């Protein structure tokens, strides 16, 4: 019983640790903005229309929605704890209850105040809203159903851009009610996933022979440099496979005080919940919240992820790979779409040097208030310039924050399974191709620079922003993966496919004929076998058919290039592998394709979901 209590305490600490890091990275802009605010209290950027601050899913003024913070906290908590334990052990520390409890306490110390502050601000907003209501309304406000609608006045309509580029109006109260339905369903699905996971012990091939066995050796030996894990003849499958899952399971065993391979599976439904909540949170910053939660619900109900036996219900690493790789792409997408958000373009996305802003200010104000005097224009220009500086700093930092999270998640994917290295390479190649496309065809690809520089042309600015994003991803991934790659060199090669070692031009040419079989096989798996795996590939195609022009945005292109690159990577792996092709690719393709599910759903969301309306006032200035 004390073990279970300690496990609960430890998992809470792990989540708080993730929350602290997510908050720190995603809110890099906050402290800087607040500094500038303290100098200049009048920060309103008056472009002619009242501008709403960035909103969370419930219309609050929080930068990071609750769903995103909670979901990302779960994922980063698991990833960073495993990585921290790895580095600790690499430096000579012993794994065990002491190390796990230390991470738990660090989590409480770092994340506790953040959650407490957010909860307090939420409660104070709630109490202010109740006080504003009449007594009769206050009574009904006590009901949870009424609270679902709180903060949304009936009939308030927001403007959005549909998949065809037309402006549509959607009732905010009704959208909030739909969001709440999705949230309840996702909550129920998470409970079902948890219950189903804990009803089975580890019972599949890979989960025991690759991951769980390493976890148990780590428990017994207390070190990643266990002589058995370094021994080529110790019976384990894929000794070179990464240690994120084994270390996460070891963390559970250490807190529990004993080995129970049913309870260590609790990691997997937590990752499932983290993936879905983060998807909902990030999308709700970008698109209509109702659509964001709908797509999160769709992601939660893709059969191959859950409740397929080898998905999140099992201890296999494929579903965690889907989680980490999906989140890496989600934040890359977020970094690329940062300027698509009107809240950002109005408040933060604009950028110019002080000289250029002073030149542009009268024009901005003329478009906004045509009857304003020239003196007023100058005064407002001064105010705007400072606010623009706030926005510039904030926007660039938030893009940096998204890029850092993308790099972290990409690195965690590579620290989960060897496919992650291929995915990381594909991500980098996709971003590089995007940068090239923007350079070669700036009129075709629609991107928005995070930090436009008036001294440069648009394409140069866009490229600069994308290059900085790519650099941040690569640097973060290198920092996280460095220790693992150093340790990996000492691990034995027994039963490893050793793709990179086997790769040669002659072998690829020799096995070219298998490409046709592989292409047909993958098409069959993706499109024909939808009753088994889900409709996500069809939804992606529907998105392409319905809104073909949206594909030409940078954010959508990077997803499309990534999916194509990943499929090509699988085909090349099939050509290089020493195993029998139909058994190797035939047996592993459903699990590999599972890892791309979040990207497919995200692509469909980017194609179909109504987006925030762009600022009409800013368009003529070329800042969007």
């Amino acid at each position, binding site marked *: 019983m004390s073990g279970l209590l300690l496990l609960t305490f430890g998992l809470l600490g792990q989540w708080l640790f993730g929350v602290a890091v997510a908050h720190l990275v995603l809110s890099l802009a906050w402290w800087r903005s607040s500094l500038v605010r303290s100098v200049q209290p009048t920060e309103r950027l008056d472009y002619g229309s009242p501008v709403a601050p960035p909103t969370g899913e419930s219309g609050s003024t929080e930068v990071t929605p609750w769903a995103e913070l909670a979901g990302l906290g779960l994922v980063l908590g698991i990833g960073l704890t495993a990585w921290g334990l790895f580095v600790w052990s690499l430096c000579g520390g012993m794994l065990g209850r002491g190390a796990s409890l230390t991470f738990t306490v660090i989590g409480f110390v770092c994340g506790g105040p953040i959650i407490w502050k957010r909860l307090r601000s939420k409660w104070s907003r709630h109490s202010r809203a109740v006080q504003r209501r009449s007594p009769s309304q206050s009574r*009904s406000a006590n*009901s949870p*159903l*009424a609270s679902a*609608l709180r903060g949304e006045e009936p009939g308030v309509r927001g403007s959005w851009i*549909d*998949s065809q580029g*037309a402006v549509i109006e*959607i*009732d905010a109260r*009704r*959208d*909030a009610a*739909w969001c709440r*339905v999705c949230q309840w369903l996702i909550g129920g699905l998470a409970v*079902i996933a948890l219950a*189903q996971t804990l*009803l*089975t*012990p580890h*019972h*599949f091939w890979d989960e*025991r*022979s690759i991951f*769980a*066995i390493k976890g*148990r050796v780590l428990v017994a030996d207390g070190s990643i440099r266990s002589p058995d894990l370094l021994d080529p*003849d*110790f*019976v*384990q*499958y894929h000794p070179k496979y990464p240690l994120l899952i084994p270390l996460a399971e070891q963390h559970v065993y250490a807190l529990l005080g004993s*080995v*129970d*391979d*049913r309870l260590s599976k609790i990691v997997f439904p937590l990752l499932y919940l983290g993936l879905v909540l983060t998807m909902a949170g990030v999308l709700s910053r970008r698109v*209509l919240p*109702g*659509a964001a939660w*709908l797509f999160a619900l*769709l992601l939660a*109900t893709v*059969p191959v992820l859950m*409740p*397929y036996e080898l998905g999140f*219900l099992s201890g296999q690493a494929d579903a965690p790979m889907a989680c980490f790789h999906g989140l890496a792409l989600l934040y890359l997408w977020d970094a690329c779409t940062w300027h698509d958000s009107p809240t950002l373009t109005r408040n933060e996305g604009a950028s110019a040097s002080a000289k250029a802003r002073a030149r542009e200010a009268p024009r901005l104000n003329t478009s906004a208030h045509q009857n304003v005097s020239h003196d007023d224009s100058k005064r407002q220009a001064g105010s705007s310039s400072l606010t623009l500086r706030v926005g510039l700093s904030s926007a660039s930092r938030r893009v940096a924050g998204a890029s850092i999270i993308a790099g972290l998640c990409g690195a965690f994917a590579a620290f989960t399974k060897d496919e992650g290295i291929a995915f990381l390479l594909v991500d980098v190649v996709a971003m590089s191709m995007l940068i090239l496309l923007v350079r070669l065809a700036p009129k075709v690809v629609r991107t928005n620079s995070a930090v436009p520089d008036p001294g440069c042309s648009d394409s140069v600015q866009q490229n600069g922003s994308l290059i900085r994003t790519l650099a941040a991803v690569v640097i973060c991934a290198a920092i996280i993966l460095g220790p693992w790659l150093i340790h990996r060199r000492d691990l034995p090669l*027994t039963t490893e496919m050793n793709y990179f070692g086997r790769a040669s031009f002659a072998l690829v040419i020799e096995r070219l004929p298998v490409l046709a079989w592989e292409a047909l096989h993958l098409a069959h798996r993706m499109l024909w076998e939808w*009753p088994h795996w889900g409709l996500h590939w*069809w*939804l992606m195609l*529907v998105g392409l*058919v*319905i809104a073909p022009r949206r594909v030409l945005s940078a954010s959508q292109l990077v997803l499309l290039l990534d999916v194509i690159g990943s499929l090509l990577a699988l085909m090349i792996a099939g050509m290089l592998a*020493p*195993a*029998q092709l139909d058994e190797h690719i035939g*047996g592993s393709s459903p699990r590999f394709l599972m890892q791309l599910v979040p990207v497919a759903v995200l692509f469909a969301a980017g194609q*179909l*979901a*109504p987006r925030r309306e762009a600022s009409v006032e800013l368009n003529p200035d070329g800042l969007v």
Partner: protein
Amino acid sequence: MFKVDRSARLTGDELRSQFWLRCLLVPLTLTTALIGGLIWFLPVDVVQDWAYQLAPPDDTRRLEAISHAEFLCWLLRVVMPLLLLAACRSWYDFANTARWWSDAVVGMLSVTRGMADGTRSSRWRTVLVRVVLAAWCGLAVVHFADSLRQRVRDWPYYRFRSGDRVLPNISDSNVDVIRYVQQATPTNSRILVVSDQKLFFLSYYLLPRRLYHKMHPDSEHVIPKENLQRRLATYRLEDLDAAFVQRIAPDYILEYFEHPDEFDRSELQDDPAWIAFQRRMHGNPSRVPNFLVRLRRATAGGQP
């Protein structure tokens, strides 16, 4: 008991949503109250007896039926009161609930219209999106029902036991060998194995005993098939050089072969402890397994 705001004048939409909500809540409340009450009133033993009588006359099937009944009984005992609570909550705040559901449905329709541009000229897009989403929901429901059925099937075997107790999803011969080695060796032994089997599950369940096995290069990337359909290339004990055995420094040496071409039938009873274990475990005093298991203590130099 219920909050009814009669002063408010209801619109046509609200009346319609209240009608549909009533249509949903009445059967839900009655069903959950009836089944929930019954399932809590009936002892689980009674339900198990009933399942036992309905099961085919086969011991395994009957044991499974008893466990299935137990699982379903407890599932209903948890789910039905929760649904009843939700239904009661909806009755208590009926007007708001109806409005909420109505808003949610309209919100969902707006979202899907916005996803596809629902103007009359392009209604096909909206229809296409909604058809895909409806198929998606249907598929999810089917898969969840299937997964629930799978959990019911698993329950008789897994219950809340850890894998070490159940030894799930491995062959009977593997189970026998694991149980035998567990009771014949100390927990921290080092065991050198020569075998024509993939030994990952043995290694997993025998921890903290450590298993070492020299993998034949020809079987490194070969996936085994059921019923020995695929023979894996393997080293015999005599193929291993002394330096290798000395490096491993095993406490025990285990020979474990299942393919009939890998051993002589006269060797099957070489290990009397194994034979005794088999006969005791299966309750058959004349049983001789059809695969070779030979566990020996190694000398200081690692030789048997």
